[in-house]
């Protein structure tokens, strides 16, 4: 059923870097939560196992087949998201679907669906620059999940979806003046959002990026505590399980969104830099796969997955070191959380899929 050549062409290095990042994550999650009930590091290991299996299973299917069904997958996920919006509206619940044993965040899976749909849309787009029609089509495709996720409300994940759209448009040849126009539009939307959409706590978060010390007990608290954790780590850090900021719970969301801060505190600047380097090696390897793709679809898939993960990494770390507002975006692969992990593994699976099938003739 699967060709031996395909296995030989699997990018093992990428897979190793993926698992390395994930296992560093488990280590840090252990340090940040071993004193809490719930065995988070064990559960994360379990998620990694599940996600790895999903990754391997997905490799069995040619990505072209997946792209063929992209709109159906996309449609299905949109229906689930819409259903959740309605359901939440009625039940006042969060953005989780509670299954028998685990909770699943469909908004994370929307990322994978959007990557596939976007690849399908741009597969036959062969112009060197982006036309307005194509841009609008792409924007429309992204807008539906964006609003459905934003309504949950999960602004962080919704914004991550836009990075996928941005990836597609850049690749399709977005002109510089269009980028500027979009930037202006984003600012406009931002201002409007500030007045009509953002909740007070979100406004506070934005405001405290600039002045985290102003209000040490309020929304600046998280950022300040995170910076204290990073800064107090120094060059080599306080040592594994010895970070007072995280062990004494001054740090918010230690094993989820602020996991990078734990690294900075316990392993110092060296630890933080090593993580960034490993991560960049992983991303570089991932982007390089684009050069090996056999077709346009493949390039799009690789690029969008790479940009999506890079975007989350940059936003998360920027937030942890206090140069970006606190939005609920986890550090991909390192933060605790099954849905995010699964979505990223599926994304990487698509990349591997593209790369290993580069010599296969259609």
């Amino acid at each position: 059923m699967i060709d031996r050549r395909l296995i030989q062409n699997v990018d093992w290095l990428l897979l190793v870097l993926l698992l390395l990042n994930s296992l560093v994550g488990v280590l840090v999650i252990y340090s940040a939560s071993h004193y809490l009930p719930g065995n988070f590091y064990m559960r994360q290991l379990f998620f990694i196992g599940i996600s790895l299996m999903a990754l391997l299973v997905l490799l069995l299917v040619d990505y072209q087949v997946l792209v063929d069904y992209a709109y159906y997958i996309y449609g299905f996920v949109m229906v689930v998201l819409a259903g959740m919006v309605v359901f939440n509206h009625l039940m006042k619940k969060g953005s989780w679907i509670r299954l028998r044993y685990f909770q699943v965040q469909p908004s994370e899976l929307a990322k994978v669906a959007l990557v596939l749909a976007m690849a399908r849309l741009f597969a036959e787009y062969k112009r060197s620059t982006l036309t307005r029609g194509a841009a609008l089509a792409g924007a429309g495709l992204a807008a539906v999940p964006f609003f459905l996720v934003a309504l949950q409300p999960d602004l962080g994940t919704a914004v991550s979806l836009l990075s996928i759209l941005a990836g597609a448009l850049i690749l399709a040849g977005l002109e510089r003046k269009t980028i500027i126009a979009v930037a202006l539009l984003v600012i406009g939307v931002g201002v409007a959002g500030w007045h009509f959409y953002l909740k007070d706590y979100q406004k506070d978060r934005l405001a405290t990026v600039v002045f985290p010390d102003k209000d040490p007990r309020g929304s600046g608290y998280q950022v300040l505590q995170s910076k204290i954790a990073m800064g107090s780590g120094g060059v080599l850090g306080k040592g594994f399980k010895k970070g007072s900021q995280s062990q004494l719970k001054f740090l918010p969301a230690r094993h989820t969104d602020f996991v990078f801060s734990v690294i900075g505190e316990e392993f110092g600047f060296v630890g933080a830099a090593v993580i960034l380097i490993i991560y960049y090696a992983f991303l570089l390897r991932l982007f390089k796969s684009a050069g090996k793709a056999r077709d346009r679809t493949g390039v799009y898939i690789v690029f969008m997955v790479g940009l999506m993960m890079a975007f989350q990494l940059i936003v998360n770390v920027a937030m942890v070191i206090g140069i970006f507002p606190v939005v609920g975006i986890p550090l991909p692969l390192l933060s605790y959380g099954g849905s995010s992990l699964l979505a990223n593994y599926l994304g990487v699976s698509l990349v591997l899929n593209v790369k290993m099938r580069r010599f296969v003739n259609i």
Partner: protein
Amino acid sequence: MEKDRVYEDLSLIQRRATVVAASIGIILLLIGLVCWKIQILDHGKYWALSEANRFRESVIAAPRGLIKDRNEVILADYTPSFRASIIRENCRDLDVSIENIARLLAIAPAELRLRIEKYASLPAFQPIVVKDNLDLREVSRIESRRLEFPELIVENDPRRFYPFGSLAAHVIGYLQEVNPEELKGGTFKGKMLGDLVGRTGVEREYETQLTGVNGRLTEIVDSQGRPRGQAARVEPAAGGDLGLTLDFDIQKKASELLEGREGAIIVMDPRNGDVLALASYPTYDPNKFITRFTPQEWMDLMSRPDHPLENRVIRGQYSPGSIFKLTMAAGGLKFGAIAESTTFYCPGFGQFYGRPFACWKAGGHGALNLTGAIQNSCNVYFYNVGRRLGVDRIAEAAESLGLGEEKTGIDLPGEKGGIIPSEAWSQSERKSPWYPGETISVAIGQGPVLVTPVQVAVHTAILANRGKRVVPRLLQAGGLREGPAGAAAGEDSRPGAIPAGIYETVVNGMWRCVNEGGTGKGADVDGFDVCGKTGSTQIIGRETAERLGRKIMPHSWFTGFAPRDNPRVVVTVLVEFGGMGGATAAPLAREIFALYKEKYD
């Protein structure tokens, strides 16, 4: 021109991918630089902040020293308790905090606000006590809301407790919160906001000795403020205990005797000035206001017309009445105005300076010598002595017998002196000459003569000691006391002191007063040789009282000592509006003498 061309190869979009990947690398590098700044350049600052996060300093309050009687009965103890304080610098919005705290601790918001405003001038990091004597439910209510109320802290607060309530309240005194002016003025060294300090009594007098040194506790806490371990602990040093000269049983008896009256009793050892009992009535329960708040009870006490907070023993100024006849007798003998055998005839009144002066006994006493006059407290006899002496020599005698402006030096704050008139006094205080007729009133302790009960006790001790003056003291010898100006007991070495022989005569009169059916017979205790003198002082003239149509009772005095030879105890009793001294005060003194004899003989 390129626009419409279609490339089949992927190099263009692949190049775009490479550019983006490179840009991501640059962004990550910038992020790495920010990490460098935070983690390496600013490391010191953040390290200090993380240490400050970890540790919480708190004060372990030192318990106040105990106050005990001479037999180690604890009169002032302490019990553990907790208090809640607000730290204003941790408030997000003071008004909101006040509302929330008022609700949490069930205090009236207006009262809480008033309290916080009272201390507004102090630095915002200093905790202001908002409620004390918390019960355990309140403590856990606060502890469980650390996050909601970062501005509220609970502190250990060993609380003063007086096991016998109002017993000896005027000796012990009471505590109140130190006020901001005192803190700034440095009245109390080492005190902090919210600390209680002695306001009166030995609590005030020995404040420094009773105050311990607070300890410090440095705890490692988590972000919820929950302790996770101790980093350092400096144990508090408890304040020094005070051993008082009081005798619990006698003090208790004195309190019981005064119950329901207004008056004062002081019991003293004439040999060394040890005060065995000091009671003032009405009294109060100091337990009721060991709080940082001004409770209604205290306001009520302040405004009551019978002044329960006033220590009558050291601050009540009264006419001595017939007690002053002892001074007249000693003075008369000293200045040779009379001899022991000098006899006057009492027809019930006497004519002096063109005015009749009555004796208390309507029919008169007939002919009396000096000891007989003391025994029966004959006014007419002493009118004559007074006329012969003149006011200035009376004053000289009184002052050498412990009366007058000079205070006794008892170790209690707020003691008042008395007044013994003289011609110079009249000129300087009244701006008018002294009239010889006034001397006749002074001779029986009326007119502008004022003494305090403690002065009368010292006066009696001088007589009992045949001239040796003592300073009354509440702190036992060998206690903490450094010694004030006059210090411990000592002979009166002032010039013009009365020769010892004269005392024997006066003491003889006092003995007859009690033991031979005199006015003081009510104080007689079998086999104890009590010597004493009664006094009854008219507050207003008999005519005025009759005009008002009211029966105005005089203040009732008795002062005495026992036994006659080698006296061991002095008892002075004053009952305001008590009636005749012999009828009211003397029997009270008898009870004390009897108890003393029973206990110490």
